[in-house]
Each structure stands twice: as structure tokens, then as C-alpha cells.
């Protein structure tokens, strides 16, 4: 117990309260942990083990074969080449899409807050509409547009779609962050002789890192987990991993290799998990170094 804890009355009601609080926390933790536990345990069993044991029993023999199969041999439709290629597809889609939408969001937020111009608020309000547009409405027009510009069924096409849909969100994040920055910073930099992009790059970006964290985590998770655009605009080898996973799991012929399915699920979910754990930690540590204070 630290010395600077707040003082609480200690009595029977205090302990009853504590038991209740920790009880609730345990229940909620279990709700989130059990599915993960089932998935991971099942992915480490062979098929006999799965059939004979209960869903929560520990593997009799731990095997990594399902993981190997998921990566190299799992069948997506008729092609049994595993998830590896689709995993790469998803990265090839998500990384440029996150980078481009975030970069445009930064410039939008900066221009809308630090270089106020007539109609800035109107433009921001119009951009915000993008946040509320349901994806389904634009599927057909978007398919037409992708066809006309020759990007149908391709990763660059998906990148374009995700950038377009990401800009309202990233603009919202950066605009709302930068509106709180002191306006004198940009004035001072202008007096010092810096131009629009020099000020952005040297002064504004270094203090906007917390906002980059939010934008990158949000965009990466959304784009990686996207299903509807991937399913609509791609097929065959160009699919992102989420579509491939669906096709692996939803086969209706033969024996279902549950262990391979579970391994595929974990593989598909890992990148977003890593973004949360590492990106979040790394960036927040940079934030705490005191660069923004004052």
C-alpha cells in the first residue's frame, strides 16, 4: 500500500464492498478470458484429443501441427495454401491505408485549427458526415468507381476505399486534439520564418504523438478487421485474411479440423493485439517523457 492512498473508512461495509468489487471484476474478466482460453487450448490439441476431452480440458499432447497447417496448408475454397498469403495481403492493405489516412487526417486537423480560414467549420461538419455513413450504402457506387478507375479486385482498390472511409475519423481525431494546442505556437513559428509544412513537421507533429496513437490503433484495428469491403471488392488470391478465415472455417465438406480453425483465428487476431500492446505502450512512454508538458 502506498503512502499517498486516499483515506477510507475501514469497517465491515468496507470489506463487503471490496469483496463485491473484486467479485464483479473476476466475473467480467472471466467473460473475456474464457473464449480466448478455449480457442488457444483447442488449437494446441490434435483431433482425437478434441473429440474425447471437454472443451476446457488441457491438451493431452501439446501439438503445434494445427498452427503449421493453418499457416501453410489450410484450404480456402479449393486452394490449400494456408493463411500466409492472405496474412501478407492484409498487411499490404492495412499499412498503406493506415499511413495515408492518418497523414491526411493530420494535415486536415492542422489546417482546420491552426490556419483558420472562412468556412473551416462548415468543411469540418461536412467531413463529419463521413463518420455516420453506413458502409452498405456505398458498396455499389464504390464498386462502379473502382471498376472505372481500374482498381477492382486489387489491394490498391481496398486501400483507396479504406483511406476514403478513414479520413473523416482521422480528421475528427486530429482536429479535436489540435484545437486545444495554443495558437501562439504557430504564430511564433511563422514569425521565426517557418512555412506551412515546416511548422507541421517540426512543431505540431512532435506534440501530437498521443493523437497518432489513437489514430493508428483505431485505423489499424478497423481496417485489419474489415470484412464487408474485402468480401465485396476482392476474390481469390487478393482477399484479406478476414475473408480467408471465413472461407476456411465455413467449409461444409469432410471432417472439420477445429484445431486448425482455432489456430487460424488466433493468427488472424494477433496483429491487432500487437498493435494495442506494443504501439500503445511505446507511444505512451514517449508521451510521458515530458515533451508535451508546459
Amino acid at each position, binding site marked *: 500500500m502506498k503512502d499517498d492512498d486516499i483515506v477510507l473508512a475501514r469497517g465491515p461495509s468496507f470489506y463487503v464492498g471490496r469483496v463485491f468489487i473484486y467479485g464483479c471484476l473476476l466475473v467480467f474478466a472471466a467473460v473475456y478470458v474464457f473464449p480466448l482460453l478455449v480457442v488457444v487450448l483447442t488449437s494446441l490439441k490434435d483431433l482425437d484429443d478434441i473429440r474425447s476431452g471437454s472443451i476446457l480440458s488441457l491438451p493431452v499432447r501439446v501439438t503445434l501441427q494445427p498452427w503449421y497447417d493453418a499457416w501453410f496448408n489450410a484450404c480456402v475454397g479449393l486452394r490449400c495454401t494456408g493463411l500466409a498469403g492472405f496474412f501478407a495481403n492484409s498487411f499490404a492493405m492495412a499499412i498503406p491505408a493506415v499511413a495515408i489516412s492518418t497523414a491526411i487526417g493530420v494535415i486536415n486537423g492542422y489546417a482546420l485549427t491552426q490556419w483558420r480560414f472562412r468556412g473551416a467549420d462548415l468543411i469540418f461538419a461536412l467531413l463529419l458526415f463521413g463518420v455516420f455513413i453506413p458502409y452498405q450504402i456505398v458498396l455499389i457506387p464504390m464498386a462502379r468507381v473502382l471498376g472505372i478507375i481500374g482498381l477492382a479486385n486489387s489491394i490498391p482498390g481496398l486501400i483507396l476505399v479504406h483511406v476514403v472511409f478513414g479520413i473523416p475519423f482521422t480528421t475528427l481525431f486530429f482536429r479535436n486534439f489540435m484545437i486545444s494546442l495554443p495558437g*501562439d505556437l504557430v504564430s*511564433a513559428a*511563422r514569425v521565426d520564418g517557418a512555412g506551412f509544412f515546416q511548422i507541421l513537421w*517540426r*512543431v505540431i507533429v*512532435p506534440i501530437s504523438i498521443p493523437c497518432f496513437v489513437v489514430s493508428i490503433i483505431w485505423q489499424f484495428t478497423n481496417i485489419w478487421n474489415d470484412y464487408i469491403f474485402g468480401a465485396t471488392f476482392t476474390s481469390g488470391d487478393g482477399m484479406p485474411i478476414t475473408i480467408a478465415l471465413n472461407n476456411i472455417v465455413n467449409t461444409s465438406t469432410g471432417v472439420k479440423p477445429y484445431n486448425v480453425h482455432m489456430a487460424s483465428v488466433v493468427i488472424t487476431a494477433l496483429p491487432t493485439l500487437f498493435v494495442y500492446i506494443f504501439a500503445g505502450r511505446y507511444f505512451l512512454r514517449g508521451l510521458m517523457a*515530458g*515533451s*508535451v508538458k*508546459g
Partner: protein
Amino acid sequence: MTTLALEKISKYYGQVPVLTDVNIKVGSGEFLVLLGPSGCGKSTLLHAIAGLHRITSGDIAIDGRSVNEVPCQDRDIAMVFQSYALYPSMTVAKNIGFPLEMRKIPAGEREKAVAEVAKLLRIEHLLDRKPGQLSGGQRQRVAIGRALVRDPKLFLFDEPLSNLDALLRVEMRTELKKLHQRIGKTTIYVTHDQVEAMTLATRIAILNKGVLQQVGTPYEVYNRPSNLFVATFVGSPAMNLLPCVVEQKGADRVVRINARNEGSKASVRLPLPNDAMPPVGADLLLGLRPEAFSPVKFGTDGHLIKVQVTLIEPTGPEDIVLFDIAGHEAVARIGAGSIDQPGQAALAIDMRNAVFFDPKTELRVQ
């Protein structure tokens, strides 16, 4: 050396006038203070000089060359902001070097210039720190350093001391004045603090509601305020304003302070110094600074009057005394302890610095 001329500067936000027809000429090496209450347009004027705002009409000329259409980075000015506006992600050395870097000065020269400025401002030991790790006074020095490093034509200060605590403010004020004496650059300085304005300025320009009220030396502004606004805004405690009429008494003229109402004490008559020429018979306001009162006579023609002292506020070296004169409340600044308690007292009045105002036009009567 640099001169600055502001001619008929007006600025509107939509239909709202922020500055109206401001004319000021600033000579080379001058320290001009723009003084006024908040919202009077002084910061807007400074930002217009810097090129951060457009003006609606008028002309800003630096060294005789109109800069209305020159963007701020090409006006060769440096500015210190109220919030200091240091770049949070850069070290102190990078902050100070930034204006040089933006003007493509090679790294070697840059380091030399930064080191010189740091030495001048005694912040050499802070060069590797980030602004977040500095105290208010240190940040202030860094902000001044960033303005000094480039040797600009014109220095602009936007309320640079208002975020400091009282003690530090006085200290930095002295340092700013020393700095100006040493480098002698033309400086425009915005503040709402009249003490700061009086101590620093070679000339003060007083603004109210976007209109220039008076431009003059601290002495002129204090002793010969051009109107009632300047008279009451400059000086603390404020100037006493007493309704009066000037009367002819044979060869002499005297000032009669009108009683506030029937029940008040009889009006008070004061002799006028010979050179003052206020019109006879008109209703006027007599302006007397608190230090125009004294418990002992001023010179030979001093004039003692009986007053009723209501309150004494000691400030250390002096007492601020509230008293009643012909039913009006007035304030005197006198030596500590010369009146020891409220009640009847006699005060001499020094009429040499008395000023008169027309209550209708609010202008000073010459």
C-alpha cells in the same frame, strides 16, 4: 536602426471596429509601450505589425517601406508571446536556433549565435533541457533569446511578463530595460500593466476601445493626461477628479471645489498657479494626483485646508489616505505615519501639477 510608422490603421471584424484610425510614429531605438485595458485592441495592433493579422485599412511602414503585403517571415521582426510559445518538443538550444535554422544559417554559425545569446541571458546551463523542465522565468528568458538570436529590425513583445509571479515580474522588467539600453533596438511592447509601461517606455501609447488616446513620454502621460480616460487609467491610486469652477478674485483667480450636495461641507477655494489658464466660470473637473497632497506646506505659496480623514492604508514607505473634501471622496499618498488616525486633519495641496478637464468632452483644458 529602424523606424516604424503606423498611418490610419483600422481593423474590423465584420462590422465590429477593433482599431480605428490609429496613427503612431516610432523613432529609431525607441521603446514604445502600447497600454490599455484588455480588449482595447493593443494586441491586435501588435499582431498587425507582426503580419499575423491583416488590417482593414491604413499603412504600416518599417523603415519607410510599406509592409502591408509583406508576409510576417519577411518583415524581419522578432516577437515574444505572452504564453512564450516555446516549441515543446525541442531543447532550449533548438528553440533558440529555430529562427536561424528556418533562414538556412549553417549549423556552425547557428551554434555560435545560440551560445552568445545564452550567455547574454545567463541560460547556458539550460541549453539541453526541454521547455517542460523549465520554470516560468527560465522559459521567459528562452523566449527572449529566440527573439534576440537573429538580430531583427524590430522587437515585438506581447504582454511577456503577465504570466510571471510578482517578484519575478519586477526582476525581468529591470532586465528587459537593461537589455534595451544595451542593444538599443526599436521595440514595441504591449501591456495592460501601467507600472510596467511607465518603467520601461521611452514613450507610451494609450488605447481604449480601439482608439488611440494619447502618445507621450511617461512623464507627459502621467502629468499631462490628454483626457479623462488616460487620467484615470494611468497611476495607482487613480487621479482625484473634483468638480470645480474657476472664479476671478480681483487680479487672482481661484478654484472653487463644488460641494457634493447641500448637506456637505462648504466648498473649498484654492489658489491657482500663475501659468494655468483654465476658463473662468465654466464647470470643470480638477485633476489632482494623490501625491499632490501633503501634511506639510509645499514651498511658500502652499495652502492648508481642513479635511475629514476616513481611512488610512499603510503600504510601508507611504500611507494611502482616504479623506473627504467638500463632500467628495479623495485619496492622498503621504509619508507613513504623518497622520496617525482618522479624523480632522490639515492637508496642503500642490496646485502646480493640477489639470483641468471639460466634463462634457472629457478632454483636458489647456
